[in-house]
């Protein structure tokens, strides 16, 4: 016999990123602006703490919810940075990346037939996550003219008022958009009026260049209906260590932990030691990476402006989201790769809202960025 995948799996197409990855892999000497992770390594002292924990034989499971010492550090850190107030005992769950956290939350709250609105363009795993949990995703396409912010208008137009939950991500992958406290206020009001649970993926919270990051959970009456996700992948350049955390009211964290304790048992132990060190002592490393990204952001935006490529002023994460010079962003990205050896990701990989755009990652050294954009420019002419 052949083993048939389930209907749920068949419902989810392979990621559009994958196809591009295969194209890029066939070509030699490319410069990739298609990478969704930092080009830095984790701060050395965090790596050292991981090594030291291994030397000390710290290789057993931790508590299901993660080491309490780590949860305490996390709670103190988000309190200090974002004014979020969570009890490390009951309201914080350490997960295997934000990826696991989002999956747990969806499975913990979605019943078959529930509708989950997903702001788009979006990181690729939300919609599949909704489907795997038995729900129906509803795309809420943000718009270039709103600088890809989520607004009441697009929420209403997409029918999100009838949804049960809303997944959002600011600072955003793939657009680099951020939202201010006032702008989030509109979304919060909509969520309250329509009784939506909000899943807020804030993994890029440390990378907001034009204003301080605000968590939607800090807005009036939002804490009770919001699950906040954050982690160490982006700000601390720890993607491969797979560590994140979810924060929310005790009932929902308890429900998520019910799944987590059976399916994951606990997040990996070694990275938990690295994360404690990261929170205790790596603020300078984070600041240094932030400065580098910010310079590259300015560089990329000013180069696109010079080329006459329309690009809204991305203000977060490490992405710019220019309009594709050809209407068909996939065709453009393929041609750019083939003729100039420069890889960018077509916006369609991030849902319908992304069509006609390109995701340009600046998690790449400045000399490569310069060269890649020079090739981009010569391709245009």
């Amino acid at each position, binding site marked *: 016999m052949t083993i048939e995948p389930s209907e749920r799996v068949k419902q989810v197409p392979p990621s559009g*990123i994958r196809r*591009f990855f295969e194209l890029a892999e066939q070509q030699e000497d490319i410069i990739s602006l298609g*990478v969704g992770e930092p*080009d830095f390594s984790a701060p050395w002292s965090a790596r050292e703490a991981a090594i030291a924990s291994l030397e000390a034989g710290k290789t057993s499971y931790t508590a299901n919810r993660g080491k309490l010492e780590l949860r305490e550090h996390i709670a103190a850190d988000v309190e200090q940075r974002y004014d979020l107030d969570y009890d490390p005992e009951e309201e914080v769950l350490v997960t295997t990346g934000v990826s696991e956290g989002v999956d747990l939350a969806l499975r913990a709250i979605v019943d078959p037939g529930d509708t989950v609105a997903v702001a788009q363009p979006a990181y690729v795993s939300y919609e599949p996550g909704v489907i795997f949990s038995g729900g129906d995703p509803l795309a809420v396409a943000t718009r270039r003219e709103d600088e890809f912010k989520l607004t009441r208008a697009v929420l209403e137009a997409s029918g999100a008022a009838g949804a049960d939950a809303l997944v959002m991500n600011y600072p955003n992958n793939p657009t680099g958009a951020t939202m201010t406290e006032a702008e989030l206020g509109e979304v919060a009001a909509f969520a309250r009026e329509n009784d939506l649970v909000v899943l807020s993926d804030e993994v890029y919270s440390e990378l907001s260049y034009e204003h301080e990051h605000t968590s939607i959970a800090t807005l009036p009456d939002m804490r009770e209906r919001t699950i906040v996700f954050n982690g160490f992948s982006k700000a601390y350049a720890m993607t491969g260590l797979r560590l994140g955390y979810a924060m929310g009211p005790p009932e929902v964290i308890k429900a998520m932990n019910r799944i987590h304790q059976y399916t994951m048992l606990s997040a990996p132990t070694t990275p938990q030691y690295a994360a404690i060190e990261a929170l205790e002592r790596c603020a300078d490393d984070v600041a240094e990476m932030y400065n580098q990204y910010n310079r590259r952001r300015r560089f990329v935006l000013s180069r696109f402006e010079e080329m006459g490529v329309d690009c809204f002023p991305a203000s977060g994460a490490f992405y710019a989201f220019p309009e594709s010079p050809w209407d068909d962003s996939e065709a453009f990205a393929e041609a750019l790769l083939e003729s100039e050896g420069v890889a960018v*990701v077509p916006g369609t990989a991030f849902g319908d809202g992304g069509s006609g755009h390109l995701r340009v990652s600046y998690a790449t050294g400045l000399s490569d960025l310069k060269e890649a954009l020079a090739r981009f420019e010569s391709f245009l002419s």
Partner: protein
Amino acid sequence: MDSRDELLELLRENARYSTAELARLADMEEAHVEEVIADLEAAGALRGYQAIVDWDELDRERVRAMVELNVTLDRETSYGDIADRIAKFPEVTALRLMSGDYDFLMEVEGDSMSEVSWFISEKVAPIPEITQTVTHYVMDAYKENGIEFGDGEEDDRLSISP
């Protein structure tokens, strides 16, 4: 960070950035970049722009030594006076007053060990205020001015990722 600190950080990272690049990276007007740099130079805060060379990669011998110097002072002679005299020699690439067991730490560079030894024994040691020298030759360099001399960490990220 204000624009002056931003420019200093950029120049310390790579002194070869052009004015146009600095302007882009720091989000400033080119004329303003030039003005800030000119001010820093005039104030004596920006003292120079130099290359960091790993001589081992060039099969060219460069000999370097760190030399501890002890001195005696008197009413007429200060540390500054002695330092001025030593710093004038082009062989001396760095000179610092230290806390601890000795007074100055002097860095010397030359084409051969004999040249460096000759310089220390014939030019530096005879200075009347200098009572003792202890010379340490550099055997290998792993990091200079914040730049690591290894092969660097390879970029093993996937070429495209979500």
